[in-house]
């Protein structure tokens, strides 16, 4: 599903590589944590998988496609198979929960009819039934993140990338978001989550890949934060 082969990425002007000869493979339906201190290079992986950046050397495969050599005009279609959630939610403040999710469908050419059918369903799934018409500022942090998850999942992607999704949330709310991601993972969606939230990792007992200074120092099934 996802495969990194000897990937090295050095940002311009950086003294050392963010990722140094990293190889990792993730199967379909996996749930993987990438953990490590700030600046260890774990967020760089998300950017590589989204083709926001390209590696200096090595190969990145997503959905059996070589991302590194992908032509730029193919990127939009490619991204439709990936959902993405961030620490800062990235919701549009002038749109309601419903509109935020529907926006993701409309801008890839889905009709309003499709949105009317699919959006309430996915908002129900993330536990926001009845709050469709609230604006982000009328929702709690956890609820905003649920909207973000709904937006990432509404297109039924094969992969869900989560970059510190609980970074702005209190522990209880974080647990709820993790339950949600777990449910999404059970539908067959591969989930890749970057975090340094040790409680979460220890609770979930899923595969853990630890990165330090751009290198993989641990890759453990059913791991803990350590």
């Amino acid at each position, binding site marked *: 599903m996802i495969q990194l082969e000897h990937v090295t990425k050095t940002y311009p002007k950086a003294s050392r590589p963010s990722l140094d000869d990293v190889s990792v493979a993730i199967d379909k339906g996996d749930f993987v944590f990438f953990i490590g201190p700030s600046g260890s290079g774990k967020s760089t992986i998300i950017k590589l998988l*989204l083709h926001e950046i390209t590696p200096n050397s090595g190969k990145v495969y997503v959905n059996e496609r070589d991302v590194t050599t992908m032509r730029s*005009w193919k*990127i*939009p*279609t*490619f*991204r*439709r198979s*990936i959902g*993405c959630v961030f620490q800062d939610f*990235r919701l*549009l*403040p002038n749109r309601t929960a419903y509109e935020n999710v529907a*926006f*993701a469908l*409309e*801008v*890839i*050419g889905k*009709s*309003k009819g499709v949105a009317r059918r699919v959006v309430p369903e996915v908002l129900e799934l993330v536990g926001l039934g009845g709050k469709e018409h609230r604006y982000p500022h009328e929702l709690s942090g956890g609820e905003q993140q649920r909207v973000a998850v709904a*937006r990432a999942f509404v*297109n039924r992607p094969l992969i869900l990338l989560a970059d510190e999704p609980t970074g702005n949330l209190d522990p209880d709310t974080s647990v709820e978001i993790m339950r949600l991601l777990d449910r999404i993972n059970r539908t067959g969606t591969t989930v890749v989550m970057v975090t340094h939230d040790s409680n979460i990792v220890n609770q979930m007992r899923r595969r853990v890949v630890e990165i330090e200074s751009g290198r993989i120092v641990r890759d453990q099934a059913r791991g803990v934060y350590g």
Partner: protein
Amino acid sequence: MRAKYVLAEVVTGLWRNVTMTIAMMITMAVSLTMLGASLLMYMQVKSLQDFFYGKVEVSIFLKLDVTDDQRAALKSDLERDPLVQQPVIYESRETAMKRFKEQFKDAPDLVNATKPDSLPESYRVKLKDPNQFNEVASRYNGKEGISEIIDQRKLLGKIFGIFNSVQNVALIVAIVQGLAALLLVANMIQIAAFSKRREVAVMKLVGASNWFIQAPFVLEAVFAGLVGAILAFAALWLSKHLFLDGSLKALQNVFPPIPESNVLLMLPVLAGIGAAINAITGWITLRFYVRV
């Protein structure tokens, strides 16, 4: 639905920064007006040249003391000359005086002060090829009884020179204003892209196609260009009808009026130029500067 979305985005985009949009349209309008005026002048000068050059003659003025023999010899030379279009017209002092009185009938003092003697007699000829004036002139220069050979084309050349420089000034103003308009377009798009940066980020994230992200911005610029072109056309049309056909109507005895069809032609021409230039500028701004 997509078209509707894009159009709605264009409208809100234009309205979001309405002062800027208006400034852009006005600059665009001024630039395109100048461009249109310059084009019209170019077409007009072309038709004026055809109009006048068909009529111009070479005047061969004879000396006051020319003899009958010299006059007759010159006439037969001219009639046999292969470069000269027949017939050769002779203008006596009396006809010259009559023509002069007719031409300057509004200035009786000038007419009264002019003695018939001061207007020389002349031959007026048309050349088969007006460009061969120098050859004709050198052939007759120095012949007995000739005082001066004048090519009316040279006089017209000076007038057309003035037209040309006016046209050039208009063109330069058009280019300078056009540049200002382009910078405003680039600026407008940058502001638009900035105010929509969240939407753009989400669109890129969920995989909206590039044209779908860029189209509203480019169309905003194109729309502003079209409005500028329409304003420019209105300015040109009004100047023709209010000034050239109105207060400057007297000039039309000398110069043929600008045909309505040429003015109407300016609408699609200016609209096309305005829209195309704005679209290209907009796209380049997005592609290389804003990186939307």
